[in-house]
């Protein structure tokens, strides 16, 4: 679990030990250290509350709606290679990872969390590819089967790009701690 560093007040200046130093002539602008823009990250409590709220649409998107569509398809005589169990497991895992990404966004854990969420999405889609077919029987020995694995392979490009985003953010946060946070939560 990542521990948030204490928030920096909006008017905070870079740490200066001038108070304890003997009075000196005011430094010129050229020699003074550049003022770091302040940022204020939302509190963990607030992020957790919003995260739980976000869990609802995430679960709807990743689990409930697909499971409902699967159930309706079954009622219509369509059989799918995708099981309700896989939809539940995958949907819940992806929903939780998405919420974790939101909660840890103002921390350096955001990069790894993004990588984990994107990687999980890619793996989830790749696992679904061999199962991605629907079959319907028309009676009298006729059946039709639609395979749509290529669509999932194409969709996997999107979290793959998200994976790259996570890596870039991870590197950025390692090389320049708090730089991203000042942009995202500054002012």
């Amino acid at each position, binding site marked *: 679990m990542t521990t948030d560093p204490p928030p920096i007040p909006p008017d905070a200046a870079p740490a200066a030990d001038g108070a304890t130093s003997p009075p000196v002539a005011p430094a010129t602008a050229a020699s003074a250290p550049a003022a770091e823009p302040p940022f204020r990250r939302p509190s963990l409590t607030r992020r957790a509350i919003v995260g739980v709220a976000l869990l609802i649409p995430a679960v709807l998107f990743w689990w409930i709606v697909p499971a409902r569509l699967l159930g309706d398809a079954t009622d219509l005589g369509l059989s799918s290679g995708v099981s309700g169990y896989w939809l539940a497991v995958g949907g819940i895992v992806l929903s939780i990872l998405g919420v974790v990404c939101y909660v840890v966004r103002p921390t350096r854990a955001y990069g790894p969390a993004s990588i984990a969420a994107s990687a999980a999405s890619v793996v989830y889609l790749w696992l679904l590819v061999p199962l991605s077919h629907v079959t319907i029987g028309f009676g009298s020995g006729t059946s039709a089967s639609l395979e749509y694995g290529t669509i999932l392979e194409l969709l996997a490009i999107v979290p793959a790009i998200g994976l790259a*985003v996570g890596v870039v953010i991870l590197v950025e946060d390692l090389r320049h701690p708090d730089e991203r946070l000042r942009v995202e939560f500054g002012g």
Partner: protein
Amino acid sequence: MGPMARAPPLYRLSRMLRRIGTIVLVAILLYVGAAAYSASQVRLAGLDGNGQVTTAGENVTVVGGISLQNGGFLGISGVELASYIWLPSGTLLGVAHSPTVTIPPGVNATVPVTLVFDLGLNAEAASLLTHNAELPVESFANVSFAGIATLGIHNSMNYSWGAPFQSLNVTPQVPTAQSNGTVAFPVRVSYQNAGLFDEVGTITYTVHAASGMVCATAQLPIDTPKGTGYDTTTTVYVPPSCSISGGTVDIDYTGNGLAIALPPEPIP
């Protein structure tokens, strides 16, 4: 409003990647939607049931096809048909197949299917020359839409095979002794052409004694359109040394490119 930090390069890169991801997602969804709409415009224009029949050796080849009208704006590719026909015993009798066809948008195309019956495969296949049968058939059709989804259709049915020499009978009738010492045997040949093609050619039958010795042979020209029957009696002369009782009549048909032995008929 507080001072805004200028976005660092890596952060800008991540933002750009995120936008690319969004654009890719939207593009994929639009393409899938367009492909689905385009696929919905594909129509089965017709079945070519009046297949052209050709015969060669012991094979009967039927060429048919289906017509597809691609009314969509994306091509359909990988259009392919295949059928497997089995003898009642489970032996594979014939395979019907089509070439793999691509149908561009707005084009009405026929996918040809070629079905080959190998009637010389074995005795059971040869029996199809003289006996109608219900043959199990499994058919498969594949169509690929816009390269992202493949529709496969599977059909199991029975094909009603009509024998070209249905109920063939070659029957020696009551013999009559001739003054030259031979025995005249009237032989009645009858059958119904329930097959796929008109028969124009020659039936040659050979009468064997029970010992296997050839007693007589005769040729009959035939011209039997499909759906009609043939019933003719001819006379063969057998030497007195030949006793045909318990023998067999071997029958060969030559015509339409076919050269095939029909199942032998026993002589009571």
